[in-house]
């Protein structure tokens, strides 16, 4: 199953080695159904405004096999009814000028929805980079701290060594180094 939110805090411990990690390879579908863990996804998807949610739904709807399939079926029905003798009620004879208008209307809305979804994606990209900048700042600070801590350790070790040498020299006043 997908991990519960409180497991997010224990993930540091699970890195230390013992026990199986709770990170399992899941399918993309399972991962998408789970709660968002990454701050960028939380801000971008969970806190999306109504307009943004509708925009996501619209681009997901138009960019789906269902849309393509239903549109194709409707086109075939339209052309069929308006060209086969059997049907008496025809509203758009050859060369299907009204169908052409329908295509234009579809294209006139697909363009803006495409841009809408592109803008959303650009917005997310921008947010992701800002997050990267914040995180890398923290990481760099941590790295510098680690380096400084090790340097302090080296200094301390050096002092211990000097102390030992001094004690040895005191014990053998001849000063002979062996």
């Amino acid at each position, binding site marked *: 199953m997908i991990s519960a939110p409180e497991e997010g805090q224990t993930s*540091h411990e699970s890195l230390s080695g013992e026990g199986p990690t709770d990170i399992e390879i899941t399918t993309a579908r399972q991962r998408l159904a789970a709660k968002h863990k990454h701050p960028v996804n939380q801000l971008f998807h969970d806190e999306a405004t109504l307009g943004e949610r509708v925009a996501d739904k619209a681009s997901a709807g138009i960019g789906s096999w269902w849309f393509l399939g239903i549109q194709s079926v409707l086109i075939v029905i339209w052309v069929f009814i308006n060209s086969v003798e059997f049907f008496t009620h025809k509203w758009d004879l050859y060369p299907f000028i009204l169908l052409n208008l329908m295509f234009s209307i579809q294209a*006139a809305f697909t363009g*803006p929805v495409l841009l809408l979804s*592109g803008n959303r994606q650009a917005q997310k990209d921008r947010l992701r980079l800002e997050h990267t900048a914040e995180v890398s700042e923290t990481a760099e600070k941590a*790295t510098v701290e680690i380096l400084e801590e090790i340097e302090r350790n080296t200094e301390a*070790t050096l002092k*211990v060594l000097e102390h030992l040498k001094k004690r040895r020299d005191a014990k053998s006043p001849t000063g002979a180094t062996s």
Partner: protein
Amino acid sequence: MAQQGAPATHDIVHRLRLRHRDPNADHKHPVNKAHYDDAPLGARIADHLAAGMGSWPFIIIQSALLLVWVAINYYGLFVKRWDVYPFILLNLLLSLQATYAGPIVLLAGNRQSQKDRITLEHAADEADKGEEHITRILIEIKKNTDLTLQILRELEAESA
């Protein structure tokens, strides 16, 4: 480390949320700065075009104009009809819109792929910097280990 980590993450999310909702906020990441804050005129216009056409006001106004056009020319409301059923002039206008929408979509896409390129270049620079840090840390630890080994030898000599 973990105790310090939680509130820091919270602060980060808070700052990000503020910047996310403010289009005029200053950017922190160098790639965002280069891409948005230092964009040339053409790029700015491209961004505005994409933002304008890819917005709910555009879609809603376009829908309203469509309905008004069809209502007037189908039912003959208010003024003399100028584009009777099946609305060939409307078709032309919509095609014109689509003709411009395509290039604008590509313009926005090109901007985005350019940004992706800068992002990767920046990531490569950062990786170099990170490697340098790690190398320095490793050298320092090796120094430390050498010293500790010297101490060990001193102690061994002492107890021998």
